[in-house]
């Protein structure tokens, strides 16, 4: 997949201005321009326990908002009723930046920010509920990177929300602990939902469609926290076939269009009870940082790039794999499965930690187990993709179920 990566990088560069951009997006002719200063003052004067309510209406902002006080709720009257639009934003890397504990954001929309829509940097007990983040001109490389973006947070709930058009991830939880992402819809993002370097995440009841990749569970090197233990279940992950319109160099730029669920360098991931279909590269991809930009020089020595303890079971699969992204994957498909064939539902790049092998095999607890009636393709990455092969039987095994994330913090 190194070659795949290179191919994709070139593609991404060529398509650097791709997308549906140019569509005009939300019409702001009747939008309220005076409310900005009211809300800025409220955010400055906020005290713990305050609820800042924003009435229905379309409000225009030319600069970003920031909240630094613990225990504040910002509440609108609905994700289609209370709209904060940043089309005319002049300054600020986010729409709303929060650095506080016990924060709740609910029932409003944040649209067309230059950069990230909502970033929560640090903090415990973060709830984002019924929030729509959207780039209303359609998906485009120039759109902001992240929609809903808690990072280095503990106890996070994102529910009943919608993310559309992010040039990186629609919903992105990074370097966090105890996370629930449920009942959201992510559409036309490069990554629909991404959990990165996080510990203890439940991702369920979501719909991810029309993204480049539907749901991603990643680990990146050189960060303060390494991630593990993610459950992805009861989601609808279908037709994530939108071209990769992300920026080259970002971790998601290596995701082929047509990816359903992608695990990269992460451990302890359980994927079950999902309905996964029509993702044209593969419904599930399991890969290592080796395939996506590994540099021996720069990766911390103790970084473990190998995806281990992966359990895939009880999912429903249909379609997919019929039109993989990139020349290498297309060639692979044609050679192994014919012009009208499809890649198997599960694609594994084949990197295994040689130091952990016992008698040529990984210990049972570290294995990749696929207990669904689908095939697994080992792309043979370690040998330069010389001998890609279907070896489903090597992955027929089961693992222990993972513990759930908790929502004890909610009251």
């Amino acid at each position, binding site marked *: 997949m190194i070659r795949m990566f290179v191919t994709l990088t070139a593609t991404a560069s060529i398509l650097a201005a791709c997308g549906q951009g140019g569509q005009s997006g939300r019409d702001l002719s009747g939008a309220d321009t005076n409310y900005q200063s009211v809300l800025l003052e409220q955010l400055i004067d906020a005290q713990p326990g305050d609820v800042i309510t924003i009435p229905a209406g379309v409000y225009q902002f030319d600069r970003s908002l*920031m909240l630094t006080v613990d225990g504040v709720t910002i509440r609108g009257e609905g994700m289609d009723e209370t709209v904060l639009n940043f089309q005319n934003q002049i300054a*600020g890397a986010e729409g709303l930046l929060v650095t506080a504990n016990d924060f709740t954001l609910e029932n409003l929309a944040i649209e067309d920010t230059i950069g990230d829509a909502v970033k929560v940097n640090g903090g415990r007990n973060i709830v984002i509920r019924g929030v729509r983040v959207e780039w209303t001109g359609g998906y485009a490389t120039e759109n902001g*990177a992240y929609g809903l973006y808690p990072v280095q947070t503990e106890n996070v709930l994102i529910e009943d929300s919608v993310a559309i058009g992010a040039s990186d991830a629609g919903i992105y939880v990074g370097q966090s602990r105890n996370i629930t992402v449920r009942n959201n819809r992510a559409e036309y993002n490069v990554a629909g939902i991404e959990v*990165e370097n996080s510990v203890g995440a439940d991702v369920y009841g979501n719909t991810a469609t029309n993204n480049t990749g539907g749901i991603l569970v990643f680990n990146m090197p050189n960060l303060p926290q390494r991630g593990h233990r993610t459950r992805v279940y009861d989601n609808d992950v279908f037709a994530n076939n939108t071209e990769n319109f992300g*920026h080259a160099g970002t971790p998601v730029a290596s995701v082929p269009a047509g990816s359903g669920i992608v695990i990269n360098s992460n451990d302890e991931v359980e994927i079950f009870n999902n309905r996964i279909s029509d993702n044209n590269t593969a419904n599930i991809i399991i890969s290592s940082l080796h395939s996506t930009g590994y540099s021996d020089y720069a990766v911390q020595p103790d970084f473990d790039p190998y995806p281990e303890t992966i359990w895939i079971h009880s999912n429903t699969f249909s379609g997919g794999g019929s039109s993989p992204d990139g020349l290498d994957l297309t060639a692979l498909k044609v050679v192994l499965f014919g012009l009208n064939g499809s890649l198997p539902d599960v694609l594994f790049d084949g990197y295994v930690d040689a130091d952990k092998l016992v008698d040529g095999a990984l210990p049972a607890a570290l294995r990749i187990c696929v207990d669904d009636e689908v095939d697994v393709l080992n792309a043979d990455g370690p040998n330069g993709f010389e001998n890609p092969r279907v070896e489903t039987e090597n992955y027929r095994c089961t693992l222990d179920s993972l513990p759930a994330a908790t929502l004890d913090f909610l009251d």
Partner: protein
Amino acid sequence: MTVCRVFATVLALLVTACGAETVTPRYIESGNPAQLSQWGQLQIRGGVLEPAEGVIAYDLTSPLFTDYAHKLRTIWIPEGRQAVYRDGDVLDFPVGTVITKTFYYPRGEEAGVLSSTYPGDGEAQPARLDLGQVELIETRILVRRETGWDAIPYRWDANQSEAALNRIGDIIPMQLDHDGQQLAFNYIMPNVNQCASCHAPDSNTREIAPIGPKPRHLNRDFDHGSGPVNQLTHMAELGLLMNFPLPEAAPRNADWNDQAVTLDARARAYLDINCSHCHSPVGPADTSGLFLEPDTPAGPQLGLCKLPIAAGGGTGDRPYDIVPGEPDLSILLYRMASVEADVMMPEIGRSTIHTEAVELIRDWIAQMDGSCG
């Protein structure tokens, strides 16, 4: 009636004749005073803005870049109190300390146009601003209260006689002559909450703190009117700084613009004052894994061959934060050379490209050995 009028007249005379000369620095324990003058830190006398009696002007070895703005910085410590020297950190200031930073530009040759430099020979006296020659934009106060530091910003009025509290920030269209180039940009005055974007350098405590008054930034000379003297020595001699060793024993950053020192020292000094308040192991940008403190070893933490994490469009389609020998493949340089809100670094505090610093960092990366394999 008559008595009142006489009294009013006398009062007015007093204010006119002596008002400016009787400015006394004050510590205000709580609240957000509506006028900058209430703090008594700066005074306007004979068309000149200067520190009030007992208020010490200072400068930094290398300053933060803010759209080529000039800055008059002052510290005042209440009578009988002292700051305590800390080697690698901001001086430990006592309650009551007031720090001010006034952003201003020399006036350009055309009306409505400001300049990045003074015409002719430049600044005569750094702590005395001739209001005929400069335009004051904003003054930011950092005050050390019982509860910690508070940040309170003031915007100067059109006739440059007073600055009023402005908590929600402002976007100020500006025309600037820089080195013969005409720059048109929006000068962004941050809102109060955004002070924490830079001035909450520990993302765990999130406490507001000064950035500049660390020994390595203060350890240089300043002319208070009777010849250059080391700033830390000066404070110690005034009895305002305890436990100060000698300047030679204190750390000192390079002047990023001093061609006489090594490229590495200049680049690291620039990255320190402009970036390390966020890009440190406890800073809000530790999410990136990129640390730009002066003692960060040359390796992935300093960005060498380090993958970007959540840079989005900030990557500029480049592979690593720094590619040794390849400035044009280095994300760090791309982000310094941008003014796009979702690309540029620092994220706030500038709307122009610091061309000279971009050149410095370009040269620094270009002379690095090695490759990313």
